[in-house]
């Protein structure tokens, strides 16, 4: 049981490592936001599932489950707020990208 948990934990860490690589490779803020919004959420959830498997059914894993629920709710919220605020203030976004894919239908700029 402990071996399986460790393996799942390592998978979570590997997912986070891809996030770190992406953080340095992407040139745009909105692409970098992907690291927080998706990759880090997935990595952290995988990590916590690994910890839960490692400890079996106990109060420890129940608390980790609680943290996981809070994390699933709150981390996308942070990413959403950051993306929305950055879009509204038109910061770090070029004209081409705006025309290509960031139009929200209201003529935001």
């Amino acid at each position, binding site marked *: 049981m402990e071996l399986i948990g460790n393996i799942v934990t390592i998978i979570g860490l590997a997912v986070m490592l891809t996030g770190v690589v992406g953080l340095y490779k992407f040139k745009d803020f909105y692409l970098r936001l992907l690291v927080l919004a998706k990759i880090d959420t997935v990595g952290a959830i995988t990590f916590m599932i690994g910890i839960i498997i490692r400890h079996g059914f106990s109060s420890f894993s129940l608390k980790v489950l609680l943290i996981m629920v809070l994390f699933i709710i*709150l981390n996308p*919220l942070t990413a959403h*707020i950051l993306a929305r605020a950055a879009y509204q203030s038109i910061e770090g976004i070029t004209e081409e990208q705006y025309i290509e894919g960031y139009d929200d239908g209201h003529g935001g700029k």
Partner: protein
Amino acid sequence: MIYVLLVFWVTSAILAIQARKLVRLIVYLAIFSTISAICFFVLGAPDVAMAEVAVSSFSTVFMIVCFEKYFTLVTEVTPDPPKEKIFLMRFRKLVLPIAFTGLLAVLFVYFIPEGAASTYLRDLYLSRFMFEVGGENAVTSIYLGYRVYDTLFEALMLLISVVGVAHMSWRNESEITDEQFAGVTKSDAVDVYTIRIICPAMLIFGVYLILNGHISPGGGFQGGVAVASFFICRYLIHNVYDVRFGKIMIFEKMTFAAIVVLAAVFIFFGFYVQFPQFRTAYMILMNLLIAMKVSFGFIIIFYRYIAFERR
């Protein structure tokens, strides 16, 4: 591991000092408090770490409100200094702090005072707190039993700072409108619904911290701040000015009086020795009162900053 964390700590502190713009300063300061909290945690002080986390969010909020007020002052462009001064500025800003830090580190390593390492008081407290004060968390039994004067005067200090914030505001209470109160913080639907889900969790967790203060890390102050942060979320959801400061301030003063009376009756009149079965009840009640006082104080300071100190 702890050495790497300490290096991060010092690095973020230097970053915060070095920052030119105020926004960067605030962000670096938030990172600094994050890392200092994990340092306290690893060094074995979970109570302090919890207080640091809870207070850091509040202090960031206060700083950003002040920043919004003085934004026009900040964005004024300062001319570049002449070139011969740049070297002097770099010397002053970079070399001197690093030299000072290195000097302090050398002093700490080589001149450890002999008498400071005495473990007499620690052994005394750790061996006797269960029988003399009760409770399983040594920190709580120290700040509610052995050092109750400290707790009283800390509560008094918070009361004085709240009174100072309340009486040095710029405007009268009758001038505040809903629109002014809401200001720039207009949340969209996603924020409102998500924070509505999270709010009760904050309240429940705060009450859990308060009521478990005597057996696990946490206690009155941390729980009180957790309960007060519920009201920050309430501000984010509602945006309506319906706070009555007078009643909250009266409640806060009454709570402080209750803390003083309870501590005086239970500890100084000797009920502590006569009724050992009430000790747990005393600790829970005291934690609850401290939490009420702290949360009232933080609510007053937060709403004052939001409603009264903005442009």
